[in-house]
């Protein structure tokens, strides 16, 4: 028994991504049509060329018909998947495995969420009928417990930590200001970030990702067929997923300074891809910056920084657009908002643009390194799912 991965067996050969904004004039159907048509066009295929579909949506609709009806697919297999905030990544993971298995030649993953039809702020999960004893906190509150625990454990001055997580927001807004698909396209000053009204704990409005509507899509084929569709395919090097057992909520040994599910997921992903020195082999990372403190801790769980030091690396600008390892060069959840089913594929879309040298002058990073990492999490500290993909332009 082992996690073998499917390194270099499949490739992404086309992608599409809508703007992520409050699409008051577009419904879920409109969003999947736009992302899918961009994707067919990107891969140079017709709709009917795609053999099977995976739709990721957390609350956009039930069953594959949520996709087959708006796209008017002709008797195609369509599977709807949900895996918390990693839903979009999960759709791609399943499509990739289906192609790797030999079951299909071409598969498409579509992720979509129409969040802004609820009339509420933030994301709103609808739990199944239950006994009423579960937590009712917001995600912001659950993640806000990480910052004081981190400061205490590593002896970081709370003001310095405040500065570091504000830098995460500053950086992601700086990057998002240079991305036409992002919802928030203005740079935000450190002062504004630090003085923003508190939402939960010490996390202010600018420490939290926004909410948006959006969709993204990817087409997968066998690696050996990739050049039939594009000169610049992205080979799948690793797809790793961990669903935690919730022990952090019940085990007093969990200290809220790390996300063990993500650390385990990273070990698996690097092993699948043969990555031994992540921070020097990877060109860019798109990570799940649902809250600023989350991104900071992820730098350690993803092995980019030694434990207890990510706050220094953040302040040193190591993860800035021109830094040693750009993180969220597209602006991240901070600039895009988080349409749950689409975000994982939106991250891969940035990897697609950056590694192919198509991110545009304002945002393009160096392509000396050929690997990108995308990371998607769902749930809360103590009870979390984690997804990591590693994609690359070269075989081997």
């Amino acid at each position, binding site marked *: 028994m082992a996690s073998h991965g499917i390194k270099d067996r499949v490739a992404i050969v086309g992608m599409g991504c809508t703007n992520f904004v409050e699409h008051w004039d577009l419904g879920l159907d409109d969003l999947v049509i736009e992302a899918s048509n961009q994707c067919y066009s990107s891969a140079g295929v017709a709709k009917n060329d795609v053999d099977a579909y995976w739709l990721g949506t957390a609350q956009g609709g039930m069953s594959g018909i949520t996709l087959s009806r708006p796209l008017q697919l002709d008797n195609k297999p369509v599977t709807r998947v949900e895996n918390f905030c990693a839903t979009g990544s999960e759709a791609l993971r399943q499509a990739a495995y289906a192609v790797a298995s030999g079951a299909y030649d071409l598969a498409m993953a579509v992720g979509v969420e129409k969040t802004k039809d*609820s009339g*509420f*702020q*933030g994301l*709103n999960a*609808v*739990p199944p*009928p*239950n*006994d*009423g*004893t579960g*937590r*009712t*906190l*917001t995600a*912001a*509150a*659950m993640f*806000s*417990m990480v910052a*004081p*625990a981190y400061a*205490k454990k590593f002896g970081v001055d709370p003001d310095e930590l405040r500065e570091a997580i504000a830098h995460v927001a500053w950086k992601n807004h700086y990057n998002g200001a240079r991305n036409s698909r992002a919802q928030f396209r203005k740079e935000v000053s450190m002062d504004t970030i630090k003085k923003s009204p*508190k*939402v*939960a*704990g010490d996390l202010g409005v600018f420490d939290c990702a926004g909410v948006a509507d959006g969709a993204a899509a990817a087409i997968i084929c066998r690696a050996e067929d990739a050049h039939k569709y594009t000169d610049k395919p992205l080979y799948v090097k690793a797809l790793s997923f961990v669903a935690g*057992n919730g*022990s952090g*909520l*019940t*085990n*007093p040994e*969990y200290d*809220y300074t790390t996300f063990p599910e993500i650390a385990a997921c990273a070990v698996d992903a690097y092993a699948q891809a043969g990555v031994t020195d992540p921070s020097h082999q990877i060109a860019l990372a798109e990570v799940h910056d649902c809250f600023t403190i989350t991104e900071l801790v992820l730098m350690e769980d993803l092995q980019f920084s030694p434990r207890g030091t990510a706050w220094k690396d953040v302040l040193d600008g190591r993860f800035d657009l021109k830094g040693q390892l750009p993180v969220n060069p597209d602006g991240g959840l901070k600039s895009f908002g988080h349409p749950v089913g689409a975000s994982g594929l939106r991250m891969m879309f940035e990897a697609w643009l950056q590694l192919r040298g198509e991110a545009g002058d304002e945002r393009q990073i160096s392509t000396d390194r050929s690997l990108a990492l995308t990371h998607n999490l769902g749930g809360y500290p*103590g009870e979390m799912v984690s997804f990591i993909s590693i994609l690359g332009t070269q075989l081997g």
Partner: protein
Amino acid sequence: MQGIITWGTYLPYRRLDKSTIAPFVGQGGGKGTRTVASFDEDPTTMAVEAARGALRGRKISPQQLLFSTVSPTYADKTNATVIHAALRLNDSVTALDLGASVRSAVGGLMMAARSNVTTLVTSADIRTGLAGSAEEANGGDAGAAFVIGDSSSAPVAAEILAVTSATEEFIDRWRSPGSVRTKVWDEKFSEVTYTPLAKAAWKQALTDAKVSAEDVAMIAVASPHARVASSVAAKLGVARVVGDVIPTIGNSGAAHPGLLLASLLESSEANQVIALVSLTDGADVIILRTTEHLTTARPTPSFDEQVNGGAPLSYGKFLSWRGMMSIEPPRRPEPQRVSATAAARSEKWKYGFIGSRDKTTGSVHLPPLRVSVDGQRTDDMEDAPMADVLGTIATFTIDRLAYSPSPPIVFAVVDFDGGGRLPVELCDIDIEEVKIGRRVRMTFRRLFTVDDIPNYFWKATLVRDN
């Protein structure tokens, strides 16, 4: 002989300074304070807390449970079954609600005194009225609980010597079910009506108890009318009247006779004759003689400790907690109603706060697990009752966005003594009080109500040195 084996009282944490009412409303209020049940408390939860005080640390198995309140949370459905579940009583225990009048509460005590089984008698009330009314200012919220049984089953702290009543129909205080406004007739009418009833019941009680008024060391007179209570107390020939707590905690309706009886017991010495007189729709008298077991039966916290405790609450919060003023909620979805079937399956956890303990490793799981955390064994667990286990705050946060009937939510990760962790809401706390390392205890609360289903579960509250 039936007697009181043990007792407990519960006063909610918050106090309303009645002088804050008139500047807001333009009338009403007055001097002193009153107790205020939190937004997440109701008579059922307060009865649970009072009963926990009575039962804590004692091996007592009541055979029946009686509950009285004027403001029951459920109609049709029994409220006492919630109390029964929260106290983890045996399935064989009868659990009954008495009728929704103030007199039912003292009636529960009298029924238990006249029965031959061990009875847990609980009462609790939330008293309010229209803004600026005397009822609003003079009311109070509280719970009381007594275990009454035969001296052969457990040592009794006070033997019951006599139980008498004088009943008459007259309209002095009334309201329709569901209304917040209690209406009163002329208090003088009450006084002239109650006085002869009290004298008649008192005389019979002295006869039945074979004591004279001079033999009675101390008396307590409970009445919704303060004037009637003091007037009658002066006429019964007893030298000492129990301390007046109404200026501090208010008159808590159905709970009030129980509070006064507890106060009597806690301020008496062994081998004294004491008496409770309750004046609602008649007169009811219970005469008791304390025993040498009185001191050991005193509960923790005591009634006096609770009277002297508490923390202030603004009048605006008081109005919103009682539903008299609607406050803009956070723009978040309101919770769903509780699933009756899911709640039934998790009765031990939801109501009894019973987790599971791994028989092999000893680790405690909240909520209970069936499979060990190493994934290796299924159903290798035993019950881990955690309601009376103290814990420590490992970390905490304040959620200003989440839905709450009274935002913001103060929330902490609590590590329990001897193992077990639960991320849980804190209650009865001011934001600046929450700190890592503070000690907490669990308390039974009503989280919210949807579709007329109250969602009962547990919260943590600070352990405070009174």
